[in-house]
């Protein structure tokens, strides 16, 4: 870190894109009128897809469980409104591939009737395990974008004795302001959620990192934390990717998460501000995760802003509500740096959808990629200290293992390298391609091992069956011999008796 950076506390890594959060961030939160139909995908989290527990034609109430977790790392899904299940089938996933995912379709009845909710007035009297259990049952997942089931992280934090909870209010992606809005409008709920999470993981202090380009959020959070000394609001410099957990941990605590390690191993756990607000709602009021704040922004949107919308709302419905000035040239779920390009607007928002961006032609323009000029800008920008140009050169030659030697596994796909590249090389796409190919190879070799085990099991079975057959044959033969001997003995006795008589 150079002298200037030390003086101004600006990190040496990262980039500083134009944040373009205004005017959407300043517009008061609007509530989306309930759409006629909601499309709820069964995979909205990291892990196994959820399993539906409702049938087509079945009436459901708002907040009712409609799909149960499909494994240890999974999350349940609840009905975002009351109505009738009208279909369970495939739907275009909010995913760059444009492939389908199974989803539950609910026709809203407009009454918005709640199922019975079980809140809790004093969560701090509950055992930490009970809070973890209730959070899991409410289907809360990380709302910063990673969508990792929060309860799994709670029990991990409890097990590894994490002392510090870091609350991520960084929101470094341009255009997005949903976390900003949560902190401004629901600061008390966020702080209460933070304290509940601290109780659940046994943390002694909480540091709320907020980028200094959100002064209103910082002020609101400072007001809300006045009564609680253990929760500290820490403004951090606005620098992309400050909202990435590893970078935020390093900025707030000075500790660096080692490669191949989790944040919990350096004694901290990171949760997003929106996740904390969701935990507050889940524990205090018993409301599962069925609604969230979504930023609708981009040059093609007439009235950009933040909407309180149910999970499963079609992106077209959100855009119709906000109005469009022109047909969007590109739709993105999430932020412009790490978000997911979408094939069309007839796909729903999911738990991890922090924003929907509808870009106009000027914003969506992709400059043509040129050859690498070895300027090293990407290496300077990389927040993980990697060499993106070297990794990309290996991947271009299909040498994925070579890219792995340069630290591909540590790449967080933040997009700084591709943003800064003067030759406009799509570096992140190279890395995503290589990560996908490597995990496909990993899966194939696991499959090979499984095949080997199955073949051995079959050989053992055949061997066992042969032995059992032989044993049975021997037993039958012995029985036959015994019977013959008995018959012979009988006839001998009879003859002897005949003789004696």
């Amino acid at each position, binding site marked *: 870190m150079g002298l200037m950076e030390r003086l101004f506390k600006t990190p040496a890594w990262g980039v500083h894109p134009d944040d373009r959060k205004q005017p959407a961030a300043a517009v008061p939160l609007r509530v989306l009128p309930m759409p006629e139909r909601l499309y709820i995908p069964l*995979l909205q989290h990291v892990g196994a897809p959820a399993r539906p527990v409702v049938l087509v034609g079945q009436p459901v109430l708002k907040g009712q469980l409609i799909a149960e977790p499909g494994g240890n790392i999974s999350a349940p899904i609840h009905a975002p409104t009351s109505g009738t299940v009208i279909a369970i089938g495939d739907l275009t996933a909010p995913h760059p591939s444009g492939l389908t995912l199974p989803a539950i379709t609910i026709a809203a009845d407009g009454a918005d009737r709640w199922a019975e909710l079980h809140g809790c007035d004093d969560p701090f009297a509950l055992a930490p395990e009970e809070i973890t259990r209730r959070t899991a049952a409410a289907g809360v997942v990380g709302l910063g974008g990673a969508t990792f089931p929060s309860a799994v992280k709670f029990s991990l934090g409890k097990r590894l004795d994490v002392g510090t909870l870091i609350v991520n209010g960084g929101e470094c992606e341009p255009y997005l302001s949903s976390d900003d809005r949560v902190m401004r409008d629901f600061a008390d709920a966020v702080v209460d959620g933070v304290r509940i999470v601290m109780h659940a993981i046994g943390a002694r202090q909480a540091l709320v990192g907020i980028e200094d380009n959100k002064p209103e959020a910082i002020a609101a959070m400072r007001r809300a934390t006045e009564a609680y000394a253990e929760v500290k609001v820490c403004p951090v410099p606005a620098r992309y990717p400050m909202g990435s957990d590893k970078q935020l941990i390093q900025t707030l605590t000075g500790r660096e998460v080692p490669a191949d390690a989790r944040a919990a191993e350096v004694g901290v756990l990171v949760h997003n501000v929106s996740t904390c607000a969701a935990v507050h709602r889940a524990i205090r009021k018993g409301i599962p995760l069925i609604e969230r704040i979504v930023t609708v922004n981009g040059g093609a949107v007439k009235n950009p802003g933040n909407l309180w919308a149910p999970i499963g709302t079609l992106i077209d419905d959100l855009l119709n509500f906000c109005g469009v000035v022109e047909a969007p040239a590109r739709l993105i779920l999430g932020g412009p740096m790490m978000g997911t390009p979408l094939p069309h607007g007839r796909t729903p928002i999911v738990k991890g959808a922090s924003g929907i961006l509808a870009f106009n032609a000027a914003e969506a323009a992709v400059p043509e990629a040129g050859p690498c000029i070895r300027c090293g800008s990407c290496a300077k920008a990389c927040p993980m200290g990697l060499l993106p140009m070297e990794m990309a050169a290996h991947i271009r030659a299909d040498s994925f293992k070579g890219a792995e030697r340069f630290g591909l596994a540590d790449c967080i796909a933040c997009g700084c390298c591709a943003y800064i590249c003067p030759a406009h*090389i799509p570096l992140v796409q190279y890395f995503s391609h290589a990560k*996908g190919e490597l995990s496909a*190879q990993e*899966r194939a*070799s696991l499959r090979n091992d499984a095949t080997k085990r199955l*073949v051995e*099991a*079959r050989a053992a079975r055949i061997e066992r069956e042969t032995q059992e057959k032989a044993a049975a044959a021997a037993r039958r033969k012995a029985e036959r011999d015994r019977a013959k001997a008995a018959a012979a003995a009988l006839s001998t006795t009879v003859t002897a008796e005949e003789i004696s008589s």
Partner: protein
Amino acid sequence: MIAAILSLTLLGTLLGFGLGFADRIFKVESNPLIDEVAALMPGSNCGQCGFPGCSGAAVALVEGRAAAAVCPPGGKALASALAAKLSLELDLSKVADRGPQIASVAEDICIGCCRCIKVCPTDAILGAAKQIHNVIREACTGCGNCVERCPTEAMTLQPIPLTVQHWVWPKPALA
């Protein structure tokens, strides 16, 4: 009686030791490379490569009679592992041709004859006499032995559909 027992015991002991020593001294050295290659193979002996089982394919690979992409169930991962092990040239375009496949039973034609169950190298088919059979997806390697054996053509190989979880970003077009 005693003399017979003693002489036979002596003879047996001597011959036993003799055989033991012969096994040590006249041991046939197998190529360790063949064993290492065989350990890489799936070991299901499905015969899709055209060699007598996985060990036969391993011998052919080491002797240079087979290409690295010889094993269809092993896929790209095995092909690149073999190419790296034996310094072979690798043509992955052939491996990608067919994609992963899985056996499936046409339930309206299956007569429940149990013949496919006997030829499945991984015990991936479930069924009993005169009951419709089914394939355990996780265990099927797509070797196709059952397809050849089925008397009613109820067994077919189907491509495994691509899912969101298995999708891979395409490589960017070269600039």
